[in-house]
């Protein structure tokens, strides 16, 4: 019987791929979308990319090749080669975040399934419909959308929506890496800088820095809400582990594999050991992202203890930017 859902995650390089237990996943996105200089980024090391695709497929999983979120002109020739390697090596799909890259890939490889990534800014059914004409077969809607809005796009356009169900949510992408300023002070060089445990904090909230990328400090967690996602017809789920360890990838993947199987079987209940695992890996706490139409770092659920924050102040004492005149 065909499994009713897909659980996937992200891996940037061969070292991480070989260190990771992939058995909990159905598909792997290969490559790092933020930076060409990321350690042995598969998008820049095309021999490694071939090996990675072969490794993933040898595990019986689907291999997807991702691409840069904000590519300048000089990225494009190498990116086109990476996409060609993806096709030659038998990748099952490529993921694009940049609409120019979407056009390039669709024209060069008309039959290649394309997954549209979260940085492509799909906010509406009309936007999704346009991208469908360029070969999109799956869409990660912009992370700011609620489940209600995502459901509307799903119904109108008829493409599967890929949902981030756990992990640090991308919040922005930059053209610059400010971590390079710290090479001397910290005694470490690129590409080691962005692999440190780095957070940017303001009072009660935090973001994780990966150099050119900014992720949510809290881990998005939809564990309690998987039955709703299933009921609304969603079947493609991502655990974002691009900045995480192989242990995170394994243990969080195991929780969601079990929980999704239970949800699709129509069985209720969340195991206490699942919470223990997720809390242990989420140093800043848990949130629901934007799925319930609220600010991304809020948590809605029957387990308020899940939002336990490592930061200093409770939400009620946060900086009032509006009062300070910072609203523009």
């Amino acid at each position, binding site marked *: 019987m065909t499994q009713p859902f897909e659980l996937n995650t992200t891996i940037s390089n061969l070292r991480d791929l070989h260190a990771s237990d992939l058995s909990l996943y159905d598909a792997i996105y290969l490559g790092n979308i933020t930076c060409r200089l990321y350690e042995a980024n598969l998008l820049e090391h095309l021999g490694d990319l071939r090996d990675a695709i072969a490794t993933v497929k040898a595990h019986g999983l689907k291999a997807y090749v991702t691409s840069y979120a904000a590519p300048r*002109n000089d990225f494009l020739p190498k990116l086109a080669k990476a996409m060609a390697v993806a096709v030659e090596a038998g990748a099952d799909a490529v993921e694009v975040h940049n*609409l120019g890259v979407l056009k390039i890939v669709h024209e060069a490889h008309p039959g290649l399934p394309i997954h549209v990534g979260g940085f492509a*800014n799909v*906010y509406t059914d009309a*936007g999704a419909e346009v991208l469908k004409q360029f070969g999109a077969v799956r869409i990660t809607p912009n992370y700011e959308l609620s489940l209600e809005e995502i459901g509307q796009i799903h119904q109108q356009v008829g493409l599967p929506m890929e949902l981030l169900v756990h992990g640090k949510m991308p919040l922005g992408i930059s053209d610059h890496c400010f971590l390079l300023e710290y090479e001397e002070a910290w005694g470490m060089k690129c590409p080691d800088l962005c692999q440190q445990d780095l957070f940017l904090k303001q009072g009660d909230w935090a*973001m994780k820095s990966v150099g050119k990328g900014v992720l949510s400090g809290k881990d998005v967690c939809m564990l309690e809400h998987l039955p709703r996602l299933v009921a609304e017809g969603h079947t493609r789920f991502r655990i974002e582990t691009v900045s995480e360890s192989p242990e995170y990838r394994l243990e969080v993947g195991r929780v969601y594999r079990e929980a999704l199987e239970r949800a699709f079987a129509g069985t209720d209940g969340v195991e206490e050991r699942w919470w223990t695992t997720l809390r242990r890996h989420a140093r800043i706490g848990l949130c629901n992202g934007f799925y319930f139409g609220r600010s991304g770092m809020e948590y809605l659920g029957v387990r308020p203890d899940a939002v336990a924050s490592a930061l200093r102040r409770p939400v009620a004492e946060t900086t009032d930017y509006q009062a300070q005149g*910072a609203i523009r």
Partner: protein
Amino acid sequence: MARFFSRAARPILLAPAGSPDAAKVALQAGADAIYVGLKGWSRGGAKGELTSEELLDTLAAAHAQGRKLQVALNTIPRQSERRYLVRRVEELIGLGIDGVIVNDAGLMAELHTRYPELRITASIGCAAMNEADVAFYRDLGADAVVLPGTLSADELYAAAQVPEVLIEVMIHMVEEFIVLGKCWMPSYYRLNATPLAELHGEGNRLIGSMKRGGAGVCFKVCEHPWVLSLNGQDVAQRLLPSRQISPINALSDILDAGVDVVKLQGRSLSPDLLAPIVGRYRRAIDAWEGGGPVPALQELPLEPSWTVSRR
């Protein structure tokens, strides 16, 4: 209204106008065209938007001087809001506007299909950064694509080689840490929706999201101090990189690259700040057109606080 995707005969200086007074001084200072926000439908919120009446008066003033006016409709409307916005565009076309600035691929395609003669610009919020992006938005119906002033002359040259689309460069702008159009840090922290009376209950102003539905408003969390934590230890207090760019002294290279429109950011600029900026770019473009050297000008003397509190 004629579409003009033949290369511009001469560079167009496109200035922001966040109020009727700002429009007046921008035109006096030599802008070939101005762009305005329509209340409830532009990135950035109420600051820098015109009412329908103000838009009508400003349009008449621009046309009386032989200049053009574009309307920024660069939020991404929800499905229910989109129907209303498309009707508003038809009204705007009837008023004689010279084009719209749009942020969403879906809205762009719909407007192009419905109003094929409408001049459409792909907003800076589309985050186009390479020549393939330019070609993508052209294919959707954009007559012009805005690129950030952070691109090199070589990159602009490559973009200008894409046929049948004009290249606009936001030459005077604040370069924020996060690429424009690829940021939702504020809404991660706070997201509040306020109904917009102007939209007859059909729209919201969203505090925290620049683009998501209705009219978005960013509050600048990126421009406040952050504590940087390394492996559990607080190691620095810092601002994220953000800077005013205004490479007027490199204008010759930019225009030589084939750029059609020199665009200035700042619909929230007051008339007293806007006028000298427009005037300087007018003189620089005129010098380039005259074949002489662009006069050496110092970087524009906007005070540092402009990037933080006056945008």
